[in-house]
């Protein structure tokens, strides 16, 4: 038992230590983060309330549609949750936590450590799931069920907990499976993992939105049921449906099925982790100890970078460019993400617009395409631009002991950020000519997304420079997924949503062309100004 206390003390101290420096801005970020999550939760509460209420008035099929939405929501939550759990767990194996490596040298029962890690992730998962599922469950229950009863809350709690355990187990098992097979090629593994995940997402999309779904809106009640019951998502053997049906029905079978399924998966997962955790960490740490090939080798003068020919700020930017070019993993990752966006839009452009498809549906597709590009751009920037300052890493003392002003440093990071984002900015301008159904809006989409992406680059650069995570600078993916990275994601996503809302409003004739461009630009300007002010307060006071 006391070993749990040691482990929890270690984590508590790490948490406190994070707040020890630049306390004020970190507390602000922390509360900002919580505020955004709560805001998201409220948004879900009101929007789902609105949707469910309007479905409720659609006498015949309203509840069935709502049930379908619940099933789809839980399926997506599970897929996304398993995806992120896989990434977290694989990251634990591959990025290696220094504390765990130290624990490896001690005579410690692996099962204790595994239980601790599992318990921690389940708690975090539960909190995140609550934010998404609680509002949905509450509105559904109060509109279609018996109102806000204690029974509903208990059922919701049970579903959330099951989901937390389920996603954690699924993700952990996938990570163990991957780590046991591919130990050396981390970048290959990441790329393969993302491809598989995308494939699963696409498959899920097709499962939830099959071709005959749109026909349901145009037929009468006699034809409805055969089609509805045969929708692929309504298959009785999809385990996530048991969980969804716990909320939408009162049958006890679903509760039993869900709990048995979850508990079974969890037990298998615990056994698998306890047996594999140390062997995997050991075999990976043995490989990590060998010097990296990319960091050794001779470079003759004619192929070297000639910093002496540049001004201070340009030389600094060139140095970071060298870091990206000389780490094939980094540039490879960037190219991969760009190709992925291209691929996505290629697929998207194949979506055929049939004659019976409503105008409304195509309008949604336009907004979806715009928001989708924003989502991809944000992923790219979070991974490639946000960590630029933190990548100074253990060598950061050097820059800070040289006579360079903070502004010049930021300037060099900005220069590099726009250089790294050049392919993305080009795509933001041109990609709208690929899907034919974007035809009437191409100019607006191109200008809008170019401005938005350009501002996003600056936002990520600034957020990354406000409180750079130098300690993790050698693994950019850890920098991106740190708390500051998540804060950046939240801020930039909010900005993107506003921009997408502008496009939506233009299509619905409530905003003018100019307004669609000016409103987000003004908001972006305000965000940037705030970030610059925070930057001047924080990086200037950075301590080593």
């Amino acid at each position, binding site marked *: 038992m006391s070993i749990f206390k040691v482990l929890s003390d270690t984590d508590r101290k790490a948490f406190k230590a994070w707040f020890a420096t630049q306390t004020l801005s970190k507390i602000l970020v922390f509360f900002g983060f919580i505020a955004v999550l709560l805001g998201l939760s409220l948004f879900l509460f009101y929007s789902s309330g609105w949707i469910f209420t309007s479905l409720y008035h659609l006498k015949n099929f309203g509840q069935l549609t709502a049930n379908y939405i619940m099933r789809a929501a839980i399926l997506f939550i599970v897929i996304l949750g398993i995806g992120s759990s896989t990434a977290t767990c694989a990251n634990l194996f591959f990025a290696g936590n220094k504390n765990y490596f130290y624990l490896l040298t001690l005579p410690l029962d692996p099962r204790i450590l595994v239980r601790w890690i599992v318990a921690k992730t389940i708690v975090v998962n539960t909190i995140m799931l609550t934010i998404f599922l609680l509002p949905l469950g509450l509105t559904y229950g109060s509109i279609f069920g018996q109102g806000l009863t204690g029974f509903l809350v208990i059922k919701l709690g049970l579903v959330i907990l099951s989901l937390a355990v389920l996603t954690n187990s699924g993700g952990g098992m996938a990570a163990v499976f991957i780590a046991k097979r591919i130990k050396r090629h981390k970048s290959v593994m990441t790329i393969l993992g993302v491809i598989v995940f995308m494939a699963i997402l696409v498959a899920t999309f097709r499962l939830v939105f099959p071709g005959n779904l749109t026909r349901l809106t145009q037929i009468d009640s006699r034809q409805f049921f055969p089609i509805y019951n045969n929708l692929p998502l309504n298959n009785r053997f999809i385990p996530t449906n048991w969980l969804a049906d716990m909320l939408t029905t009162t049958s006890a079978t679903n509760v039993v099925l869900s709990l048995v399924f979850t508990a079974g998966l969890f037990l298998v997962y615990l056994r698998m982790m306890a047996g594999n955790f140390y062997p995997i960490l050991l075999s990976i740490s043995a490989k990590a100890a060998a*010097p*990296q090939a*990319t*960091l*050794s*080798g*001779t*470079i*003759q*003068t004619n192929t*070297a*970078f*000639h*910093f*002496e*020919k*540049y*001004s*201070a700020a340009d*030389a*600094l930017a060139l*140095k970071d460019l*060298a*870091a990206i070019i*000389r*780490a094939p993993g980094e540039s490879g990752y960037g190219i991969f993400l760009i190709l992925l966006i291209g691929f996505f839009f290629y697929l998207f452009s194949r979506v055929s617009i049939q004659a019976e498809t409503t105008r409304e549906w195509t309008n949604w597709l336009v907004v979806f395409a715009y928001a989708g590009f924003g989502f991809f751009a944000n992923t790219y920037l979070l991974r490639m631009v946000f960590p630029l300052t933190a990548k100074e890493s*253990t*060598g950061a*003392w*050097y820059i*800070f*002991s*040289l*006579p*360079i*002003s903070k502004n010049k440093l930021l300037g060099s990071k900005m220069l590099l950020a726009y250089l790294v984002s050049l392919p993305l900015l080009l795509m933001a301008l041109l990609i709208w000519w690929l899907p034919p159904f974007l035809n009437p809006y191409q100019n607006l989409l191109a200008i809008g997304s170019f401005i938005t992406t350009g501002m996003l680059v600056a936002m990520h650069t600034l957020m990354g420079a406000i409180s750079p995570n130098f300690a993790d600078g050698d693994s950019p993916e850890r920098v991106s997924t740190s708390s500051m990275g998540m804060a950046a994601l939240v801020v930039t996503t909010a900005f993107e949503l506003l921009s997408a809302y502008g496009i939506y409003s233009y299509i619905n004739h409530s905003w003018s062309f100019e307004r669609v461009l000016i409103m987000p630009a003004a908001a972006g300007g305000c965000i940037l100004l705030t970030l610059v002010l925070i930057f001047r307060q924080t990086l200037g*006071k950075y*301590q*080593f």
Partner: protein
Amino acid sequence: MNRVVIEADNLSRNFDKIKAVDGVHLTVNAGDIYALIGPNGAGKTTFIKILTGLLAPSKGIAWICGQDIAKNPLEAKRHFGYVSDNPVVYDYLTGYEFLNLTGAIRGMKEKEIKRRIEELVQIFPLKEVMLQKMGSYSRGNRQKTAFLASMISKPELLIIDEPIAGLDPTSITIFGQTLARYARDGGTVFLATHILSFGQDFATRVGAMNKGRLVKETEVTGENLNEIYKETVNSK
């Protein structure tokens, strides 16, 4: 020539309850090689980090060549070159590229940088090593490269934390002689070291720290650093 290069006035720094540096008064004149000695945890590194602007003092002021490091960091930083006690810099650059980069950041002209690098690489036999990426360097070669970089713009002051940890005996002698020549030409050196014999041979002044306080300060000639060190450790 008694120009003051470093002046610390009541310099202090706390980490929570630990007084890492506690009310240090200290003056270093031009031409001095000043060695800071003291046991592990005495506060040498913390003191140096305050001097170089990497840490803010809790109390007190430090001037480098007349510039307050906290108020005018840029002006102060133009006057010195610094090597950290853990001289890890850019693993993906070669030694040559690193020197070029430092020259560029310090605002030197291309020709000047090239000429200066030619001079510097003569100091240690490093010509082959400098073509390799620094990620593969041994600790000693890292130390040497960082030292050369700190000298590139011919600053008036060198601040070096544990300069000879990891250097081989031949390199230590070369290093000491280089510092001596640099000081003869009017440069000033401030370093922290555990190798008392090195201080005895090459330093002109010595300061002994313990538990954050500067316990003793004296000329090196005529003194025995081993004795001073023992006294320092035993001081309360």
